[in-house]
């Protein structure tokens, strides 16, 4: 009889389908302002997604944590999510200084993208409960953090040394800026009222709305996304080698997917 110790968390087939469906739904939740035909439907879309996103996400989470999460994965996930939650408010959240992203990126890199998705989502959820930052924006934040974890763990798994450092630096910048973009996207339609030059025009032309959004994004993100990207990159570069070594050692010590064999005699 030959078996293996439990693997680190991986998506099952049904999880992948659930994730794909939720992603499509979330994409709609982020981009509806460009497609809403008038004020009426824009308002409807806003309230609809405020309610529907958390529900869809709760469904996804129950599906993801249904099976195949064994004790070791749960312990790792719990500890790292708690660390993320503790790290996030360290920078007081002002001007995007949230020192949690580097750890999410590094952990996802070591433990893979499925684990990274769960970690990002749970870490964001825990930190929101921790800091009282609960609101309609929370599901968007959770989903964005999950996607960052997913991406950070997905590519170029064999890179090591300085190449890995450069790759991680790129990921850090892309993730920090991308997160800001997504957050602005869900924030923009109701942030400015209706009559500024950058406001969302319900039912307006996609190109005009897009241009307005991009100007809004660059004006506001100067103060938020760039510090976030700088902080994350600096932390990834300075702490990267040590944190990666510690996490990789943890992974090795936890003996994921090691063969177990039971036999009558030792041959």
């Amino acid at each position, binding site marked *: 009889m030959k078996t293996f*110790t439990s693997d680190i968390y991986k998506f099952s087939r049904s999880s992948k389908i659930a994730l794909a469906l939720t992603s499509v739904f979330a994409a709609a939740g982020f981009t509806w302002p460009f497609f809403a035909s008038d004020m009426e439907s824009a308002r409807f879309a806003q309230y609809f997604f405020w309610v529907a996103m958390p529900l869809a996400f709760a469904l996804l989470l129950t599906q993801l944590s249904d099976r195949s999460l064994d004790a*070791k994965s749960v312990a790792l996930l719990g500890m790292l999510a708690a660390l993320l939650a503790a790290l996030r408010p360290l920078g007081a959240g002002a001007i995007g200084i949230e020192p949690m992203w580097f750890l999410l990126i590094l952990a996802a890199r070591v433990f893979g993208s499925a684990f990274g998705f769960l970690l990002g989502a749970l870490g964001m959820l825990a930190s929101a409960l921790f800091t009282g930052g609960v609101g309609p924006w929370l599901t968007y934040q959770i989903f964005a953090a999950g996607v960052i974890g997913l991406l950070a763990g997905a590519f170029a798994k064999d890179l090591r040394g300085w190449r890995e450092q450069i790759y991680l630096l790129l990921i850090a910048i892309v993730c920090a800026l991308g997160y800001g973009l997504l957050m602005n996207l869900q924030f923009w339609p109701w942030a400015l009222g209706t009559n500024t030059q950058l406001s969302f025009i319900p039912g307006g032309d996609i190109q005009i709305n897009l241009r307005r959004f991009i100007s809004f994004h660059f004006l506001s993100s100067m103060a938020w996304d760039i510090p976030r990207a700088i902080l994350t990159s600096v932390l990834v570069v300075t702490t990267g080698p*040590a944190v990666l070594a510690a996490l990789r050692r943890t992974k090795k010590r936890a003996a994921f997917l*090691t*063969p*177990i064999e039971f*036999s009558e005699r*030792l041959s």
Partner: protein
Amino acid sequence: MINFSRVSLVYPTSTKTILEDLSFEIAEGEMVLVIGSTGTGKSSLLRLINGLVPHHTGGILAGDITVGGVSTQLVRPGELAHLVGIVGQNPAQGFVTDIVEEELAFGMEALNIAPDVMRKRVEEILDLLALAHLRNRAISTLSGGEQQRVAIGSALVMNPKVLVLDEPTSALDPIAAEEVLSILHRLVHDLSLTVVIAEHRLERVIGFADRIIHIAGDGSAEINLPEEILKRSEIAPPIVHLARALGLSDVGLSVREVRRMTEEIRASGKDIPREVGQLGEIAIRTNKLSLTYGEKKALNEVSTQIHSGEIVALMGRNGAGKSSLLTTLVGINKLSSGSSEINGIKSVDLKGQVRRETVGFIPQEPSDLLYGQSVQGECQQADRDNQSAPGSTFALLKRIVPSINPETHPRDLSEGQRLALALAIVISAQPKVLILDEPTRGLDYQSKALLISLLKNFAKELNRSVLIATHDVELVAELCDRVIFLAEGEVVADGPTLDILLSSPAFAPQVAKVMSPRPWLTVSDVMRAVAE
């Protein structure tokens, strides 16, 4: 209760057979002691009992293990949780919650036990382990012995039939160890609990064990009565070594037995002349040194001198101020009044390069000194810091522990290897004074003997001084010239080892208890007295 039938174990990453063809049976209500040097597979054997090996670690397991009739092959470790309780070496690492009561309830919550049953069981355990007065305390504020009792309690609360303990007393002082062991003894006798326990300090546990499993290190193991095993085993408490050295026909396991056998030797042995060593120049000098933490007085007017070439032990209860004195000497604490200096340099002025060359300090947890990613890295760093030839620290380390692997992460080393690494790094700076805080925690007899010879060489050949804070009276008897006894931050006794250790029965080493009233502390003392 526990049945091993032709069990062999190999880990997937190595070719070494940890255990080979091991068969034994442990009956209900038995207390079995597992002995063996570090790294021979004691912990693996313990973890086989509840299935953590190989279900969580991987590996090839041949043969069959059943606990209470359940084969560990067929069920996951979680499904044995109600049958086997396991307690680790360092209880603090296993705690999940902050408060004693919550910690006790945690395991039952995971097993989904009804709240009213939980309440009742928590009360029972609080009474059984005499923890009732601590129920609302934060675990971090408890003493080592109390923490270990809470850890045992949180395993017992699930009503297991078997309790497995991995070195439960190695981090404890003698009094706390006694406390834990007497509780275990009671559990075995009153509740007929089956206990399997691995331990290095045999002099503490040998009196309680019904049988011993001795793991040899080449995969073979033997299970037998304590008397039989100890007749031949290399690993033995001092009184057994004494009985062997004297050529007695039987080995006694208690002081009382050996005393009866050695009446004649006590009467006929000659007095051994005292060695009066030359005192070197003063290396450490404190004058009315006081230290307060907030309201609490940690040290009160401590005045003492330590000469070069001297090995001095600092003894006393937990919280008597031993560690405070050591850290003050090396300049980590700011003293409140008085003065302390090493080699004429004030402690507070010790910084950087000067500190490294003047004093080497190894704290209670040697890994506090180790930040590198590998043994090799640590040694290279030490070479650079001391501007010594590359590889010299590693060469020193190799002399202490020849089997060490340079690629290992410092935190993956065994307790003894980690201490050796810290020692090598500190000694490579050639400090004038060496200060160690509790260096023998978790060390087996071999590593301890090695430590003793290393420190003796360092002090006597290089004429440097060594100061050790310790609970280990056997170490003091073998190694130290002088003992300073602290209580409540004050020096209550200071004098030659012989006088101090013999003056109180609680601190006398085993050999001295056997040979009292003759002033012989160690086996070699006795042999010299008999020979002359």
